[in-house]
């Protein structure tokens, strides 16, 4: 975090950034409500719940391909963590093309609501059943 703060200062763009620090509880949703786009640029992420929180809040998301959640989401823009041009491109696209950002927000919200633990549990159960019967 400190390295990023220093970098924004070096580039003289620190007035364009807010480093909020760790957010929890209602602060997360307050932040999402005033956001136009949420980005999870993880180098490596086993799953990543935060994009789902953003999608539930109706915020278009950009996620790293190197995350578990990217395997199950359709209504998200996916980029490789190292491809900063693609990341900038995706942010530009969401801000420039309101039709796309509205569709990402609308479809993303529906998609996140349709993700249920009982569906995942069912699939795991089916895998066990087929392994037992094999």
């Amino acid at each position: 975090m400190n390295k990023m703060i220093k970098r924004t200062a070096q580039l003289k763009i620190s007035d364009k950034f807010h480093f909020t620090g760790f957010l929890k509880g209602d602060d997360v949703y307050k932040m999402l409500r005033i956001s136009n786009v949420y980005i999870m640029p993880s180098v490596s992420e086993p799953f990543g719940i935060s994009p789902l929180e953003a999608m539930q809040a109706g915020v278009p998301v950009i996620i790293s391909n190197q995350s578990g959640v990217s395997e199950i989401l359709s209504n998200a823009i996916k980029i490789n963590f190292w491809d900063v041009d693609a990341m900038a491109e995706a942010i530009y696209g969401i801000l420039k093309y309101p039709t796309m950002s509205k569709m990402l927000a609308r479809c993303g919200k529906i998609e996140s609501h349709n993700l249920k633990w009982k569906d995942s549990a069912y699939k795991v159960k089916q895998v066990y059943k087929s392994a037992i019967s094999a």
Partner: protein
Amino acid sequence: MRSICLYFNIHQPVRLKKFRFFDLGRSDYYYDDYSNEIILSKVTKNCYLPANKMILDLIIQHQGRFKVAFSISGTAIDQFKLYAPEVIESFRELADTGCVEFLAETYSHSFSVLKDKTEFKKQVESHANTIETLFGIRPTIFANTELIYSDEIGAVVADMGYKAILAEVSSHILKWRSPNYLYRNAINPAFTVFLKNNPLSDDIASRFSNSDWSRWPLTSPKYASWLNKIPKEEKIINLFMNYEIFGEHQKLDTGIFEFLESLPSAVLRKTDFEFRTPSEVVENHQPISTLHVNYPVSQADKTMELTPWMGNDLQKEAFEKLYKLNKLINQCTDQGILKDWQYLQTSDHFYYMSTKSFPQGDVHASLNPYEGPYEAFMNFMNVLNDFSIRLNQLVKSKYSHQFNINEIELAEV
């Protein structure tokens, strides 16, 4: 004598390169030449050349009793000229047999008929000119992009002097009607409509290699037996497919080429069907009644609507913004801009933005260069933005010495 009309569409889009917003105003070349060449070379090797050779051999073997029809999109022709001119030569050999008919379509395999009839007519004229130049015969029968049809589309094509159109209409519109007859267009009764026989066409195009299909494996004797079960009063079977099923979508090891090789013999020996070109079908059969199709319908989707291309907000937005530029295009004579205008209209760009699952057996899906529909939309819109900027600048500079600049309505994407 009953007729089988075998029609294949050959199409490759000129795919866009990755065009970032950083590139806006810096690059006026939009195409991924590397990918387009690689893909075209692959499909040429796997499909176009071996399939053309097989069809030529079958025409010779059956002494003129095996006939087919093709339509080749202008974008495919442009790329054949660049990367695989031998494919055009092989189509010329087929044209010289007299057993092959080439149909007209829109040059850029576009949906222009839905938005701008003048643009549509220009594209069809351009395509027909190209086909006549390449193969020596001007097309008299038309196949719209993805066989989209409506009464109005048929009437526009009829006005251009064509005799007939190939179409695909869903069963919920046909209702009790069979596709195995010719029909009259509802606005111009002298204009004939061919309807694709969906089940029999898709048995080959989509289901051929699907081992879960109840009727797999498909052999030509089996297929001929199905043809024999068609009621005798139904005189025409229209089998309309993408050519790329041979060797590309249905791979070589599925046996699709062996099926094609044995199909003419099976049909000619075991059924009362003859292979006829669409023009021959029009000469030999009469339309049975008038077909009413009030709104445009298409293939490639079980719902048989335009949802694969126009079903979501991204596609509709991109389509609207593209054709908003047509007023300015009409004021532009720059050849580079006009070529880009053609290539940007290709239907595939919108197909890549689809959020529907690609239907089984869809050829477009296998060659989709994008990660997903949002990426496809962003890339297309970035290109369109740059194109719009160039177009605006050209029209402004052309007219600025004549008019007050504020009088010109500049289209913004």
